[in-house]
């Protein structure tokens, strides 16, 4: 079976139910795992990216497609040998201490997940200690922090210091973002990267881990 038209269409539409059913059908028919991934799911996401860049699709639709792909991946992933399918990288993400704003952070998390990163979302009001512990626990490649308030921005610096004290600062890359955050602030607190929006966050994360 080499035709994944039904699957790609369902992923583009963000129709989770149909896409999962199509994936199962392909698996039952004995289709090649790598083909389902490459010719079905990734091919669909390529079209989604294309439609998004020409304005035919909006962010919610792109996120839905990404989520649809993730749901299909849940069926495929266990069938791969452990070293056959690597995630792009492990990301621990959250809104910093005393800040409860999470829409921007959620968008970044969803976009990164759609792009193939393994996301651990710690939610809002995340203390430096919690960021550090979780990063150690999962062996994070990236710690991503968000702040909407200028008053909570200092917590980003404290989190970086906590990573240092725990001795893992050289093992993780730190990304920051949020309305008041700037490139300058990022270099001032010695974060590794700053992204102004969710789309750029994905690009920045890939760059940090040197993946295309």
């Amino acid at each position, binding site marked *: 079976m080499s035709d994944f038209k039904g699957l790609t269409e369902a992923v583009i539409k*963000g129709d989770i139910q149909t896409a999962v059913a199509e994936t199962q059908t392909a698996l039952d028919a004995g289709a090649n795992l790598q083909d389902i991934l490459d010719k079905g799911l990734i091919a669909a996401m390529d079209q989604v990216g294309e439609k998004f860049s020409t304005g035919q699709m*909006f*962010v*919610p*639709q792109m*996120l*839905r497609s990404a*989520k649809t792909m993730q749901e299909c991946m849940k069926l495929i992933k266990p069938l791969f040998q452990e070293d056959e399918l690597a995630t792009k990288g492990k990301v621990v993400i959250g809104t910093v201490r005393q800040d409860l704003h*999470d*829409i921007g952070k*959620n*968008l970044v998390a*969803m976009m990164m997940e759609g792009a193939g990163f393994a996301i651990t979302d710690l939610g809002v009001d995340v203390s430096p200690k919690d960021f550090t512990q979780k990063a150690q626990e999962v062996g994070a490649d990236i710690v991503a922090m968000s702040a909407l308030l200028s008053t909570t921005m200092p917590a980003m610096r404290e989190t970086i210091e906590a990573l240092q004290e725990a001795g893992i600062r050289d093992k993780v890359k730190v990304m920051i973002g949020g*309305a008041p955050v*700037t*490139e300058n602030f990022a270099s001032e607190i010695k974060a590794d990267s700053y992204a*102004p*929006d969710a789309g*750029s966050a994905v690009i920045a994360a890939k760059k940090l881990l040197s993946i295309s």
Partner: protein
Amino acid sequence: MPMRLPPYRPLSPEDVRKIDQTSRRILERVGIRILEQSHLNILKAAGAIIDQSDQKVRFEAAWLDEILARAPSQFILYSRDGKNDVHLGKGKVYFANGGRVFRILDMGTGGYRLTMLRDVAHTATLVHCLDNISLYIIACQAHDLQPQHYHLNDFYHALNHTTKHVMGGCDSREGAEQMWELSVFIAGEEEELREKPFVSVITNPISPLTIDGNTLDILSFCCSKSIPVTCAPAPISGATAPATLAGTLCQMHAEALAGVAICQVFSPGAKVLYGAVPTTMDLRHMEYTMSSVEMAIMNGAAVQLAMIYDFPIYASGGVTEAKRPDIQSGCEKTFSNLMVAMNGADLIHLAAGMLDSGNSISYEQYVIDNEIIGMINRILSGISVNEGTLGFGVIEKVGPGGNYVMEDHTIEYMKEEFFYPDLSVRCNFDIWEERGRPSMLSRANDLVDEILDDGREGLLDTDLILEIKKKFPGIQNL
């Protein structure tokens, strides 16, 4: 755009009645001066009172009503492809660009120059591609033409660059005839054009209370051929009309009714738009002011006056005195376009492209105004309230603390609920810097380049173009 909002009404019903009565008194007692004996004779034969000594026609009330009753309350300004027909008198608001300027702000050089024939083709292409401008008005004088071939060329190049309805001013009956002959040729049959006229003609009386013979010749010709017309008074409050808004409206209403009535004498049932271009004079230095807020209110009020008689209106909005697309042009244009639209005018002309008190245009201003009109259309369509839009189901599903980004409800409604601008800069600061600090104007400039790069070729069939050029040797190439 169909209106959902309750209309804005600057005049109370009592105000409307008083203005209308005063206008009728003007028509009955003061009259309209007609500078051509043959037309006075026609009007006399039709039952008007003629003051031969000072060449005036007066409209006795009962006769006026009888004549006005012949005018249609609805008609269509047809597009050639049926995709952009303008349905007048149906409660929809349409916008058109403005016409016959002589200067253009050229973004290539940053300076002003005289307009040329190519500017007619380019502005027609812009209107053809801009969704919120429903018909094309011949935008400018082609200074590279001999006057005897103005209208043949204007209309030919306009019709070759847009399938939307084309409206234009004509200088003479000969000009109107050229336009008509060309249009018949393109339509294939005279009857075709009579049935579905895709061209129409703008004329103006001379305020106060005068119509010249040439204008009447053009109106008489067009009405006889079923070409829609308007005879739109442009009184200037404080100069060619009283320095009160009510007084200017009384005079304008009288002039506009006279225009409709005379066309009905020429051809009963003639398709006429009640015309309104009231403006003001800045009396501090006698500066002609098209874009005053008083202009916006008066054009809004004019809609109420046309409605008494159930005539479709050709009103004005979107003008500015600013010399460049800037803050002044943005706010002046928005005020008048929005206010007149909120009154439910059938057609708002001058709504796009204009600068410099109606003397100049800029291509960029066309696309900027298209966006302003898009926002106005969104305002007119109001807030849709129904079971689906109230959204209780999705609010319950998301609950406290979640978000709505990926919900079906969001995806179902996001396209129709919001106006998505092409030019307004909405990206955040860093991305804005990364993109080279774009502005509405720089983005308008990019869009103009994109449209004109794609759209310079003509739309008419190549064989037809050859036939037209053979039949009408006066047509010049761009």
